[in-house]
Each structure stands twice: as structure tokens, then as C-alpha cells.
């Protein structure tokens, strides 16, 4: 750590579900500093009452996502030098979720929708069956693999304007998960999944604005997954009538 005299102006959102405001902190700049480092510095050296959430610090757990200068990001994988503007940074809790306190958003609605979209594995075999062989090159598996790296960080959910305007909308992450399971040959719940994503808050509300794909730190494309669900549900709709 090189100690320099350079200091940054960091606006941090303080408050809870009832409201709040930005508070400005004066934070020393360091080499290779991440936004999460900045938040940690404030909490350890300036105001111990600052609440935030993190775990792994290396982009694996998906718990440190926040709004940085109005864009959702993993704070642990965002270098300060990349987002510093006029020596200032603004850090807030994830958009589209209730705030517990300060930078910690309440993830409950996000995970509830995950389950509501049938984003849970539906086993097709018992422990007594042989382990199924999966060809990683098969068309269906390639489709499932495309969305498998989601770590539930809610960056896409926070970026989505359809979620903002339509609180029932299941959102990009849950629908991406539903599409992944739908293409998993070991999952026995494809009918359940299609029904779950066809209701009033389902995949058909998506306007393909692509913020989810634009901001996903893992480079996934939930918009593409949702388009897949739209095709699958439409095909199933006509199949069932004939």
C-alpha cells in the first residue's frame, strides 16, 4: 500500500426502507483500490455504523453488488480508477430492492421470484438410478450452459427498468435460471417451468431492453434466455390447443 496525500470524495447512501440521503466521506486514495475497499475503509476508519454486505471479495459469491455512480456493479471487482469522476464516487444500495440499511439491500423479493419462476431443480431420477451421461456438446446442453454461471448477485435485476415499472415481473435472473433448467435434460419440471413463467409477471413482460446483458458481470445474456422462454411458451401454448 502506498500512502499518498490524494483523497477522494465518496458519497455513500445512508438510510433504511423509509428513506435516507447521501453522506460524503473523505477517503484516502490507494493503488489498486476497489470500490469495496473504499466502503470497508469508511466502515473501519470513519463510521463503524455503516452497513454493507460482502463475503468472498473475488467475484464468486455475488453479495457485494451496489449501485456505483448509478450503475449496478460488483464492488469487489470494480477498480476505483475505473469509476472515479472528478475525484468523486457515488455508492448506493442496489436498485429495485427494499433497503435494509445503508448499502445492504433486502434480497428476499429477488430470491422469492427465483422460486416463483420454478428456478429450483426438479429431480427426474432417484439415488438408485444410474448417473445420467450428459454430452456437453449437445445442442440442449450448450443452451443450458450459456446461463449456468449466474451467481444471483442481482446486478441484472437492479438494472432492469421493467422490474422497476412492474413489481410483479420475475426479472432477468429468475427467468435466466428457469430457461437454464428448462434446457437441463435431468430436470423433470419443464411443464411446471413454462406455466410459472407464463403468468401476469412472467417472461412476456420483458421488453428486450438488454440492460441485464449489458451489466451482467459474468457476461451472461438473460435477455436471450427470456427470448428462449417466449418461444418455448408460445410453442407449448399452441401445442396444447391442437
Amino acid at each position: 500500500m502506498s500512502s499518498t496525500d490524494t483523497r477522494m470524495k465518496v458519497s455513500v447512501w445512508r438510510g433504511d426502507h423509509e428513506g435516507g440521503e447521501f453522506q460524503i466521506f473523505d477517503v484516502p486514495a490507494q493503488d489498486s483500490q476497489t470500490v469495496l475497499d473504499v466502503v470497508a475503509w469508511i466502515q473501519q476508519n470513519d463510521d463503524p455504523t455503516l452497513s454493507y454486505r460482502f463475503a468472498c471479495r473475488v467475484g464468486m459469491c455475488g453479495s457485494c453488488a451496489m449501485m456505483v455512480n448509478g450503475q449496478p456493479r460488483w464492488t469487489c471487482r470494480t477498480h476505483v480508477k475505473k469509476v472515479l469522476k472528478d475525484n468523486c464516487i457515488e455508492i448506493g444500495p442496489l436498485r429495485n430492492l427494499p433497503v435494509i440499511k445503508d448499502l445492504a439491500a433486502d434480497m428476499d423479493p429477488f430470491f422469492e421470484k427465483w422460486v416463483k419462476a420454478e428456478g429450483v431443480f426438479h429431480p427426474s431420477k432417484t439415488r438408485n438410478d444410474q448417473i445420467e451421461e450428459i454430452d456437453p456438446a449437445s445442442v440442449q446442453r450448450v443452451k443450458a450452459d450459456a446461463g449456468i454461471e449466474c451467481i444471483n448477485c442481482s446486478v441484472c435485476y437492479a438494472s432492469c427498468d421493467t422490474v422497476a415499472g412492474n413489481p410483479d415481473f420475475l426479472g432477468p435472473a429468475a427467468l435466466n435460471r428457469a430457461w437454464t433448467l428448462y434446457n437441463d435434460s435431468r430436470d423433470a419440471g419443464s411443464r411446471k417451468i413454462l406455466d410459472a413463467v407464463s403468468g401476469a409477471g412472467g417472461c412476456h413482460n420483458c421488453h428486450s431492453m438488454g440492460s441485464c446483458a449489458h451489466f451482467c458481470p459474468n457476461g451472461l445474456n438473460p435477455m436471450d434466455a427470456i427470448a428462449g422462454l417466449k418461444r418455448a411458451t408460445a410453442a407449448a401454448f399452441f401445442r396444447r390447443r391442437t
Partner: protein
Amino acid sequence: MIRPHRTHPLWYAFILHRVSGALLALFLPAHFWVLSMALNEAARLDGFLAWTDMPLVKFAEFGLVFLLAVHFFGGLRLLALELMPWTSRQKTLAAGAVGLSVLVSGTFFLQAV
């Protein structure tokens, strides 16, 4: 309005599609009302059509044609994205939709003046 999480091409394509759609929907009743004069009130319709010869109204018509064209080409892109597994090059296609709309509405404008 255009907050930082919205500054990317497909969001602009989205807002263009929504605003053009809303404006077209609001324009339709006026469009239908004027045309419904044709049978019994042809003179009144002609009076209105003469009014549309004013340069400013011509320019507004160009705007309407652009709205229709951009909603049409943008909508075709969305239909292709949803109906066929075409996912790549959406930004290029969205830009192409706007380009074609300028071409079509520009042709209309040149014919109109």
C-alpha cells in the same frame, strides 16, 4: 431521465420503440376522425388537407412517418429476436432500424415538399 444504468444502445432502442408507439396510438384517433369526413364532409376534409400544405405541418407529417417507420423496423427487430434464435448483432440491427426509418421518412418528406 436518462440515468446512468440506461446509457446503452438497446435501452435507447427500447425507449424509441415505446415513445413512438405511444405517440402513434395517440395520433390514431385524430387520423381516423379526419378520414371519416371523406364521405359526407369532403369540403371540410379538403380544408384540412389544404392546412397540411403548410411547411410546419409537412414537417410534423415527416415526424409521424418517421415514428411509424421506426416503430415498424424496430418492431421487426424485436420479432426476429423473439421468434428466431437471433441474439447477436442486436445493436447493429437496432441502428439499422433507425437508419432505414430515416431513409423512408426522408423519402416521404422529399416527395411531400
